[in-house]
């Protein structure tokens, strides 16, 4: 099982501590995906040897426009990111991310309104771009905000099921305290309607493919 996390320098938990906590909780690997604003320097992680489980160095490109987004994705690919994700949530950025053929479109439905629809779900499925179902707001908010988050997840789930869009499920942890053990995450996912088989694929098979598939241009053949 894999999870996609943020760590120092973006947060107060070092990558090594994240790996230690994840290994203890029963994860097989962790994908780092610190935010990368194309205006800033390319992020680097301080990953010491012997962290117990593999840590994959990815980034989550966060841009405020389509052009900067493409620039950020180019720099991330040149920089050797193992997983190139895009901070989604706005329709134009979601579309640009899919067209740039990135590995992962993070939380595409976080914006207000319908920022991820049937057209994008189909395009993502065709180009093999995975979509993230982030459980962050289910785990860490309450009341109206959580209701909205669950509703967004339901909408996204319906779309990715219909079009066969690959997806990952994550706790989107920023600190070691926000990380949840695999079985707890599974229980929360199940509660909001993600079945066992989907969960396994979303936390194992699909992340594995994202990590192994370094060449973003490789055609994904759906069996």
């Amino acid at each position, binding site marked *: 099982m894999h999870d996609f996390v943020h760590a*120092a320098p973006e947060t*107060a*938990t*070092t990558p*090594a*501590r994240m790996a*230690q*906590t994840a290994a*203890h*909780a029963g994860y097989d690997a962790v994908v780092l995906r610190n935010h990368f604003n194309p205006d800033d320097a390319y992020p680097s992680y*301080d990953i*010491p*040897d*012997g*962290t117990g489980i593999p840590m994959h160095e990815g980034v989550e490109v966060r841009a405020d426009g389509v052009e900067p987004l493409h620039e950020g994705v180019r720099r991330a690919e040149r920089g050797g990111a193992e997983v190139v994700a895009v901070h989604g949530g706005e329709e134009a950025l979601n579309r640009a991310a899919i067209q740039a053929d990135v590995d992962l479109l993070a939380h595409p439905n976080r914006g207000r309104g319908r920022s991820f629809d049937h057209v994008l779900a189909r395009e993502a499925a065709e180009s093999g771009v995975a979509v993230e179902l982030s459980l962050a707001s*289910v*785990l*860490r908010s*309450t*009341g109206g905000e*959580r209701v909205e988050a669950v509703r967004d997840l339901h909408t996204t789930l319906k779309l990715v099921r219909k079009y066969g869009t690959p997806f990952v499920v994550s706790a989107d942890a920023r*600190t*070691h*305290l*926000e*990380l*949840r*053990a695999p*079985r*707890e*995450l599974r*229980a*929360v996912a*199940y*509660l909001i309607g993600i079945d066992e088989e989907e969960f396994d694929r979303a936390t194992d098979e699909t992340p594995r493919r994202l990590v192994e598939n370094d060449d973003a241009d490789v055609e994904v053949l759906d069996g």
Partner: protein
Amino acid sequence: MTLPKSLRPRNRYVFFEAETLPDASFGEHDLRRALWFEAQNLYGDVTSAETRAKLVEYDGDDATLGAGVVRCDHDGVEETRAALACIDKVQGDPVGIRVVGVSGTLKAGRDRYGGTPETRETTVDGSPAWERGDVVDVRTDDGFMCGTHHDLGKE
């Protein structure tokens, strides 16, 4: 009045550990309430009644790693896991709760899952720090930097 054995509710004991920052100050009572409210908010009264999740003990004496037990119905373990996972703060203190095991009796669970490593106070470059096994939380100007011995170059 005692129900026949076949009709009595069957319990499961969910053993968990709760990692916190060194300055966390909540206690057993606070966590019990947090679990109660989380279950209510997450899946409501009806499922809470079926699940019967209740914190039966919690030891938060250690600075960074508490341990406790939730009793629930034998059919309610997954709901209990979900509610525990959704507790992200208790009395404002961030907490990471992870289930370490599930057992049919308290005694069997204590034998199997009891005992957590202890945190000891130390210093790192003159700053107060809390060390537990391989992990270290160092006080900084705006909170804590949480790392491991690898980060400090100790290994």
